[in-house]
């Protein structure tokens, strides 16, 4: 199982999303999970496709093609750029 975390305002958009997903070790990536989310949660997937959205796996910022393994915690972080 991979645990999903939607930080900040993404949490509002992901209210209906199951927070754990089953997938084959090393085959899933944050990008693949975003594409999978797009099939049922379009407004969330649209926000996740904004520029400067970050993904972290086990509290480490990674690239969208990072392979995911059982027990990983995948967090999506919305862009924060204002000042």
């Amino acid at each position, binding site marked *: 199982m991979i645990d999903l975390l939607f*930080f*900040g*305002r993404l*949490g509002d958009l992901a209210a209906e999303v199951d927070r754990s997903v089953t997938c084959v070790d090393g085959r899933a990536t944050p990008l693949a999970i975003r594409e999978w989310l797009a099939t049922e949660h379009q407004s969330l997937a649209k926000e996740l496709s*904004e*520029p*400067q*959205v*970050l993904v*972290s796996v086990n*509290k*480490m*910022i990674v690239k969208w093609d990072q392979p995911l393994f059982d027990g990983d915690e995948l*967090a999506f*972080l*919305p*862009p*924060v*750029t*204002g*000042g």
Partner: protein
Amino acid sequence: MPLNDDDFMRYSRHLLMGDIGELGQQRLSDARVLIVGLGGLGCPVALYLVAAGVGQIGLCDPDRVDKTNLQRQVLYRTDDCGSLKVGCAKQALEALNPGVTISAFARPIDKEILADGYHLVVDCTDNLAARQIINDACYAQRIPFVSAAAVGWEGQLVAFDFGRFRSLCFNCIIDHNSAEPMMNCANSGVVGPVLGIMGSMQATTVIRLLLGYFKQHGEMTRYDGKRGQWLSMHCSRNQQCPTCGAASV
């Protein structure tokens, strides 16, 4: 300059602390810090650093005070609307602490301002282009870079101690070719005290860096004020980073 009698009174709450004390206060007083952006983050950063006695402070912002700023930009008064932010800020900050030398630059950040011998730069801007210029200049000059941002209920902090660490920079985390996201403070709003929290974290980080207590090079902290949650994450160097990657050396 050594501390005088007035300084001993003014900074007594620092001097009481064993890990700041007279030596630490002297370090703050000898420091030269540039604050880029005098909006919701820059206001608390400037207030706290000036109050703390950071000896020389540069302020950089091309904008004028607007009524819509007053909900969160705590340096300005209603009468300041229409005046340059750096001018109003300089006046308010000098009234707070006349012992601090303040320079004002009423123009967008550029390489010339960044090359003026600062020991540290605080990024309180609202756009990637400015962050990029500051990141590159700080990396090249081996000086620390303390960056924050906020929108809505959320804030982000990340700091780099380029004097000690040559691997990993802002450019590694947010690619310099990225477009700006749709959501910004002007079109989506921002909660004033969230900027206060992030600005206070920046000011604390500056003081830690100046005193030698900072160890979280390139660690990112996120705050969600609506749900009261914090999240800290590590980042890693992008080998292809044009600023600090293998190709740049």
